[in-house]
Each structure stands twice: as structure tokens, then as C-alpha cells.
């Protein structure tokens, strides 16, 4: 055995830990920027907003502590109350409505219709249109002078009335109808993917068991794709809460303040009126609205995972 043979293994042994260390560090190095960014943008700025909401900031952030004064003045404002109520009304109708329409569309397409790809594209297309464009186009449709009302009257029904956005009690429903049009295609796509993933043998078994089509969907297919209902709901809740541009383009919060949403209100307070403290308080209330939904959801997920772990 020559000295050469002895040196090579020693060198290899020295090289290996260094390489191994690099190997273990690569994932950390790759992930570090995004972890740092999300930590700063999510947690640091959330805490900063929380602090500002407790301060006497007006045009610029100042740090005089005023306790819950901003929250008190926020909740004393009728416009904020309308905005917050609108948020829940809108979210409820939006999620239930777009899921119902999306599910019906998905089931209809799942019946092996001819030209399935074309139908899918048609129903999914609204999602590709920005909220601003959707809002603008639908505001024309709702406009009594040159929209649907004028069209139907032109056909001869001269006392036909369709002016949802002109009435402060119905304007919110105009927003809801528009957003359902926009997003039910998205729900449809997810539901359709779910329906397609169901084992076709299950449907055959139900057929032999003598279950009707309705019963097969209600008892066999839809329970199987229950996780998709949750996924659709969670994605849409956060769409609902940050609704801003659609309303800005469609009704501008009006008539009056009837379609004001929290996001519009926050924007108004912070950038139009120079009341950063109260704006931050409103933003914190929006966070609370999200948390009301998502915290129980994530707790439920954790609980379910543990329960599954126990049962094997």
C-alpha cells in the first residue's frame, strides 16, 4: 500500500462533512428570504397596525397611546356599521350562492355533455376578467337608462323595472349577483375536478344498489368530495373580505353608503381623510372577521388530523 492510497480516503473524509453541511444548508438558504419577508410583512406589520390603531395617529403615524378610543369612534359611525353588516351579508350570500351555482354547473357538465371543454371555458372565463372590468360592465347592465331595463322595455314590456343599483335597499344584491357571476366558474372548476376524482365504481355500485341519481349525489358523491367544499369556502372568504375594486367600479359604495365595504372604508379613512389611527382600527376589525372564520377552521383541521392519527 502506497502513501497515495492513504491520503485519498483522508481527503474524501474531510470533503464530505463540508459538502453534507452545504447540502443541509441549501434548503434553509433558499427559504430564508421568503420566510423573513412573510414574517416582516405579516407579523411585524400586523403588530404595527395594531399599535397604530391604539395611537392618536392622524395624517402620519404618531405614537401617543389613546387606548380603544379609535375603536369606540369607529363603532359609533353609522357608515362603518353598514360596511361591517354588508361584509357578513355579502360574504354569506356570495359563498353560498357561488358554491350552489358552481356545483350545479359542475354536475351538469359532469353528465358527459357534448362540447364539455367549450362549456368549461365559457363558465370559467369570468374569472379571467378583472374585478374593475366586471364592475364597469355590470354597472352598465344595471343602469336603468341603457342597461337590461332599457333593453327589455325596448322589446315591448314598457313597465319592466330592473334597477337594483339605483335603490339603496337592493344595491347590495346587485353586488352579490355580480360577484356570483364572476366566481361561480371558479367553484365549478374545483367541484368538477372533485367529481372527476370520484371512483366511477362507486357510482356503479350505487346504481346496482338502486339509488336514484339525486340520492347517489347526496349520499355517495358529494360526501366524498366534502373537502372541496371547505377549500372553495376558505378561498372565497378571503376574496369576500378584501372586496374593494369590484364595488369601487360597480357602485362606488352607493347609493349613499348602502354598499360601503370595510376595505373601502379603511381606504377612505387612511388616504382621503387622514385618520390613520381609526383606519388601522377598522383594518384590525377586518382581521378579526377573517379570524372568526379561519381560527375555528384550522383548529378543526388539527383536531381531525389528530383523530385520524389515533384511528390509524
Amino acid at each position: 500500500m502506497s502513501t497515495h492510497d492513504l491520503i485519498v480516503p483522508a481527503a474524501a473524509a474531510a470533503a464530505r462533512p463540508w459538502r453534507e453541511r452545504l447540502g443541509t444548508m441549501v434548503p434553509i438558504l433558499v427559504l430564508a428570504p421568503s420566510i423573513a419577508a412573510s414574517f416582516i410583512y405579516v407579523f411585524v406589520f400586523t403588530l404595527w397596525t395594531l399599535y397604530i390603531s391604539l395611537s392618536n395617529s392622524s395624517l402620519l403615524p404618531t405614537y401617543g397611546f389613546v387606548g380603544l378610543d379609535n375603536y369606540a369612534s369607529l363603532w359609533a359611525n353609522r357608515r362603518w356599521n353598514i360596511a361591517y353588516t354588508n361584509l357578513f351579508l355579502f360574504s354569506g350570500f356570495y359563498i353560498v350562492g357561488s358554491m350552489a351555482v358552481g356545483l350545479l354547473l359542475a354536475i351538469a357538465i359532469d353528465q358527459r355533455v357534448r362540447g364539455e371543454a367549450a362549456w368549461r371555458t365559457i363558465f370559467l372565463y369570468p374569472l379571467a376578467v378583472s374585478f374593475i372590468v366586471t364592475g364597469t360592465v355590470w354597472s352598465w347592465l344595471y343602469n336603468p337608462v341603457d342597461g337590461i331595463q332599457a333593453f327589455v322595455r325596448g322589446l315591448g314590456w314598457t313597465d319592466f323595472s330592473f334597477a337594483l343599483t339605483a335603490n339603496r335597499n337592493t344595491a347590495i344584491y346587485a353586488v352579490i349577483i355580480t360577484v356570483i357571476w364572476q366566481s361561480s366558474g371558479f367553484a365549478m372548476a374545483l367541484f368538477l375536478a372533485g367529481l372527476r376524482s370520484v371512483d366511477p365504481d362507486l357510482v356503479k355500485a350505487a346504481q346496482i344498489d338502486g339509488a336514484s341519481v339525486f340520492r347517489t349525489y347526496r349520499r355517495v358523491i358529494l360526501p366524498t368530495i366534502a373537502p372541496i367544499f371547505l377549500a372553495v369556502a376558505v378561498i372565497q372568504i378571503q376574496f369576500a373580505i378584501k372586496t374593494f375594486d369590484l364595488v369601487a367600479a360597480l357602485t362606488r359604495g352607493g347609493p349613499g353608503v348602502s354598499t360601503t365595504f370595510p376595505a373601502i372604508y379603511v381606504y377612505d379613512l387612511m388616504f382621503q381623510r387622514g385618520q390613520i389611527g381609526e383606519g388601522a382600527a377598522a383594518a384590525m376589525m377586518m382581521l378579526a372577521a377573517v379570524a372568526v372564520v379561519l381560527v375555528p377552521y384550522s383548529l378543526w383541521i388539527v383536531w381531525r388530523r389528530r383523530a385520524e392519527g389515533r384511528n390509524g
Partner: protein
Amino acid sequence: MSALMIRNLHKSYGSLEILAGIDLEAKTGEFVALVGPSGCGKSTLLAMIAGLETVTSGEIWIGDRLVNSVQPKDRDIAMVFQSYALYPTMTVRQNITFGMESRGVPKAAQAEAVQRVAALLQIEQLLKRKPGQLSGGQRQRVAMGRALVRDPKLFLFDEPLSNLDAKLRVDMRTEIKKLHHRVGKTTVYVTHDQVEAMTLASRIAVMNQGSVQQFDTPKRIYDRPTNMFVAGFMGSPAMNFIPARLTGSTSISVRAADGSDASLALAAPMPAGAPKDVVLGIRPEHIYRFTTDLKSRKPAVASMQAPVELVEPTGAETLAVLRLGDLEITGRFEPDDAPVMGETITLGIDMSRACLFDPTTKALL
């Protein structure tokens, strides 16, 4: 009376023909296996019996009813699927009662039926669980329970054991056989595993390319396959096919390893008009080491020389690959009496068990 009768059944998708004129019949209480390679149309045939696929032409009779256009639920059948197709969100009990629930059977009768089937299959302790919490064998039992609870005229099994591991498959095979003996229902069983078909069925339909090649008892199919496809498909290791020439009405010659022709006497004389060139089909277990003792026990044994290329001991038996001219044949030997690699062995071929085929039509002579 036959429980199932199929007459000249055709199925095609556009110009693609899946089934080309199937005739099949199952007597009441019979266990019929449909066996064949994948793509032979056996699963399509089963789906048509179940009513899950439409009939292109032909007739399907269940009992004394023509069911061509009868809904699956009204055909009085039950089916066990390859994937089991248990409803994943329901408990085992709900899985079993779902069919009765759909047909509006009273609750008390449902509970009684579940109890009866659960006791029969020994799944009482699983009734509250969901399919996701069961092992493969347990799911299999539940799937059978769901079928049994209907008390149908006809049981359909679509490759029910192919998702189980080897050991469990053998156990469940035995159980299905026991169950069939106890329940005595007419059963149609689709499988690609010829051992399953041989062990379970009272009659086997061997299918290939959309038609039934042979429909007979397992013994007849194994001993007297009607053509080279059936002969090669049934049995493992497969039957050896050896080209041979007819040298008289009672003898054939085959080319041995050293290039010389070995003459083998036939057990029965060939009919007149048989082709000069034939294919000798011989199963591995009908090839022995030649001894005078063997000759006295089996007078139809013919002998020839062959070198041993390879030996594969499997424990219970030893397979030997033997060189014969430019082809290899497989022989099955007792481990204690097995040849060794490189040895040239004198083979004793039991000609009373040999099959002769026509090389052009592939049919049994």
C-alpha cells in the same frame, strides 16, 4: 333451468368490436369463471350482465327474463368490484344497508339482514368503522357483505382479489369457495388469474379478443384445451409447444438437441387427413426422468435425450429448462429426483396426456 343465459352477444364502440358473439350459460347454483388476458372483453361482458353497459346486439336472460333493457337495480343481481367501491363516507353498516335503504326496506328488517350477513362473514366488530379504517381483506369482506345482503339471483365478481397481496389472495379465494358452497348462489366471476379460475369455478369460459375460446369444466379445459391459446393460457408454467412431424398414424418425430430426430409413439392413432406438420403440446408435469419403473407404471411414456440448461428450485417442485433442438422446454420434477445443470437427461414424456395441435388453425387435433 339456467340462471343466466347469453345468446350471440355483441358489443362495439363505433367500429371497435369488443365482444364478437358471446354464447354463455350458467345453471342455477353454478360458479362460472370468465378468464382471459387483459383487453379480452371479460369485464365488459360482466358490466353488460350487470346492466352498466348497453347491449349492441344479442340477448341476456337472467332467470326467465330478458334483461337487455332492464335497469341494473331491477336485474336482481349484486356485484363485487375490483376496487371494492365501498362508500368512503359511510360506516360499514351504512354501506351494507344503503341498497335496502334505497329500496325502502323497513329499519327492523335492515338490522336483521345486517346481523345475518355480518355473522356469516365475521365482520360484526367492524360495523361501526369506515372503509378507510379497514385492511384490504376486511374491505373485501365488507364488499361481499354488501352483495350478500341483497340475496340476489346472480352474483357478479369483477376481479375481486387482484388488489390483495399474494397470501391474503389465497386465503380469500378459499373463503369465496366456502361461501359459495354455503350460499349456493349462481356466480359469475371475472379474473385474469387462471389459478383462481381453476380453483373456484365449476365451469370456465376462456376468452380472447372478444370471443369465448372454450367453455367447459376446469378439468376438460386443462386436459383437452380446444386450441393453442387456451392451452398456453391455462397452467403455469405454460404448456410446452414442440413442432413435430407425423411419421405414421401412431408416431411423430421431434428434433432433439443434437440435431437428430427422436421418434415418439402416440398413445392413440391419428385420424386420417391430419396434417403432416403438427405441434406437440405437453405440460411440464407430464415430463419425467425416464426409468424402467416409470415405463411399467405408464406404458404410454416415450423417451428422448435432452441437456439441462437451467434448474429453478421452488421448494415444492423443481423446474428444469431443457434444450430441444433450437427451443427450450420446461419440465417439472420432484425436488429429490431433479436433474442438475449441465446433465443430459433421458426424458420420459407421458404421451397419453399430450395434445396435438394443427399449426395453421391452432386447433386441437
